[in-house]
């Protein structure tokens, strides 16, 4: 078990723990003649408390609440998703959350961890003593525990028409539509979006107008198609989002860029769209 623990914990974290450990043990021994008091349990077993938002639609009378779970982080993978799976396996099988790839590419496990939106499979467990709070994405309707209703988010993505639209008829020999390297480079920073909804649900403007404002994710994808040189409906795309509510609810709060787990910059893309609207 000790060997397994060594393998899982990073060397840096191990070093951090040992000086604190030894100093705490030394301090707790007041007199050399009196028997040493037993060391406090938290210094030997690395327990971490997780306060997880729980609500069960099948027991409607119980209000949503935070439930505490203690796990031994030395016996668990480094990411929050590992902790959630461990809690579900060992302590409470009724804990419900979405997850799929466990490598930060599917976007299923998006949730609010210690106040910041992120992917549970990419967020490391915070090694300090404070309890970690895990709650669903803010200002989204909750289906159960950490699972939220994403239909509005997906409908907004669909409304942007995220596919290639051409006016020219397809060439008779079905040749590829050519694109230079520079033109393809314009799409970098937009095509990597995994639709996890971390950015949109971190935007206060999206909280107050979720139905009308498209949100940073949908606008990032709108820009991805506006910037694509192969797409010929640029003007129509710009006109369709040139709306007081769809686009201009953005007040450059920049929470979206801070929240994105893939390191994308939706705020910059929205800025590009606004500049294009001035020219069009």
């Amino acid at each position: 078990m000790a060997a397994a623990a060594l393998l899982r914990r990073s060397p840096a974290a191990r070093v951090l723990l040992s000086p604190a450990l030894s100093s705490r043990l030394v301090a707790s021994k007041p007199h050399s003649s009196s028997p040493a008091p037993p060391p406090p349990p938290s210094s030997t077993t690395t327990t971490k408390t997780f306060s997880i938002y729980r609500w069960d639609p099948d027991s409607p009378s119980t209000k949503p609440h935070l439930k505490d779970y203690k796990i031994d982080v030395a016996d668990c993978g480094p990411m929050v998703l590992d902790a959630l799976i461990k809690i579900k396996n060992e302590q409470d099988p009724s804990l419900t959350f979405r997850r799929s790839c466990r490598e930060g590419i599917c976007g299923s496990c998006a949730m609010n961890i210690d106040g910041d939106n992120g992917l549970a499979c990419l967020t490391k467990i915070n090694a300090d003593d404070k309890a970690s709070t895990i709650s669903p994405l803010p200002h989204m309707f909750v289906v159960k525990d950490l699972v939220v209703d994403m239909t509005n988010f997906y409908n907004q993505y669909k409304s942007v028409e995220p596919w290639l639209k051409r006016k020219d008829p397809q060439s008779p020999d079905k040749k590829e539509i050519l694109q230079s390297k520079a033109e393809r480079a314009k799409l970098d920073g937009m095509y990597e979006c995994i639709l996890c909804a971390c950015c949109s649900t971190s935007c206060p403007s999206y909280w107050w107008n979720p139905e009308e404002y498209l949100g940073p994710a949908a606008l990032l994808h709108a820009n991805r198609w506006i910037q694509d040189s192969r797409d010929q409906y640029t003007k129509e795309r710009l006109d369709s989002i040139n709306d007081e509510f769809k686009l201009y609810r953005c007040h450059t709060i920049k929470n979206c860029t801070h929240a994105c787990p893939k390191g994308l910059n939706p705020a910059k893309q929205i800025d590009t769209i606004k500049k294009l609207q001035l020219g069009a």
Partner: protein
Amino acid sequence: MAPRPKLSGIQRQALALYRGFLRAARLKSPEERQMIESVVSAEFRENARSVDRRNFVYIEYLIRRGKRQLDQLKNPDITGLSTLRINKASSIP
């Protein structure tokens, strides 16, 4: 006509949802229509009886769930619906 009680917004939403289900049922085959109407009316009556009218969180959750199910039912490719009863043998402590 007896004076109609003033319905609250959430009551109107629930009734609109019920009406939506009945209208969607009309578009299916007659046997299916009967099946849909019986299932839907049974569920609505059961929830009206058992759910506390002040529990807005749960009522809104049920309305959202119902709207999603109605959207699926409206799809012309869907021919009908069926239900199954799950007996909760034990509850998680």
